[in-house]
């Protein structure tokens, strides 16, 4: 009870386990402290509710065992049925993986190889190789002619528009 209130006592353990001395202390303080009185009443009612709740118990109904045994058989039957299916599915998956690997292997070693890198390079069109810088360099006029910033931008946009087309 560090601050003179009794809430700590109420929270220290089950309300029903508080001894008479502690309860007397709590009640005495609650007389003059509205906050602690509310807390005390709430703790008392909470304890009452929980004890009433604890007294409610259900009994096993008739035929409960029969019902559980039936559910158990059903579940076991499901498992017995599910396991072979799982194995079958796993087998099919494995077979398809083997077939895929074999096909890829055959394609890699038996089929004629793809075009050589040089040939691939040749396929790239000249248009595609132009960069914006090359467009600028290819502009009319001598290399020693200075271009303005606007001219550079116009050339770049023109080249990129041309590329898009």
């Amino acid at each position, binding site marked *: 009870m560090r601050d003179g209130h009794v809430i700590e006592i109420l929270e220290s353990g089950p309300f029903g386990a508080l001894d008479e001395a502690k309860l007397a202390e709590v009640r005495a303080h609650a007389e003059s402290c509205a906050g602690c009185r509310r807390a005390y009443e709430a703790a008392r009612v909470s304890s009452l509710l929980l004890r009433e709740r604890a007294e409610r*118990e259900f009994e096993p109904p008739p035929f409960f065992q029969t019902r559980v*045994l039936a559910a158990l058989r059903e579940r076991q039957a499901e498992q017995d049925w599910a396991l072979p299916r799982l194995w079958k599915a796993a087998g099919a998956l494995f077979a398809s993986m083997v077939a895929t690997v074999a096909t890829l292997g055959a394609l890699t070693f038996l089929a004629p190889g793809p075009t050589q890198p040089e040939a691939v390079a040749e396929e790239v069109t000249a248009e595609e190789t132009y960069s914006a810088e090359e467009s600028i360099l290819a502009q009319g006029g001598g290399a020693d002619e200075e271009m303005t910033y606007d001219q550079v931008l116009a050339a770049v946009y023109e080249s990129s528009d041309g590329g898009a087309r």
Partner: protein
Amino acid sequence: MELARLARGGDESAFGEIMRRYSPRVFRVASRFFRRREQAEEAAQEIFLKAFTELGSYEGRGSFEGWLTRIATNTCLNILRAQKRRPELTAADLTENEGAWLDNQLSDAAHERHRAAENAVVAADLADRVLGTMSPDDRLALTLVDGEELSVKEVAEMTGWSESKVKVQAFRARRRMRAAVEKLLGR
């Protein structure tokens, strides 16, 4: 335990005997968690099905009842965790009987209250509704420690929690329940 060994080997009648002996215990555990009979029955069935599949883990060191109680408690906790928690209970949600019951607890004649059967039913229902707004762990701690007045050690054995966890859980849950009831009383 001989019955457990036989049941593990697939002897259905041995498992039937286990159910006959321990159904009251399992229903007692399920009753702590579930308000409606059919919910408690479904939970009890699930507990026995789980126990059957886990019979292999029972090594016969502790009591079979203790082992089964722990499975029962954890199965019920898991069922509750899978359910949606109810929103906060406000005074507007109280039934007329529940409101009257709360008022009666605050009246001066509180000492003369008789515990009529219908009052007990109203209180148990109200307790369920308040507990329904709390987390499954809070519910369990409150029900066992404050409701059934079990020791921290007993609750730790039942749940598999450490004793420190039981104490902390009960402390926090107690505080939350008190705050919830305080709101209802101050309506």
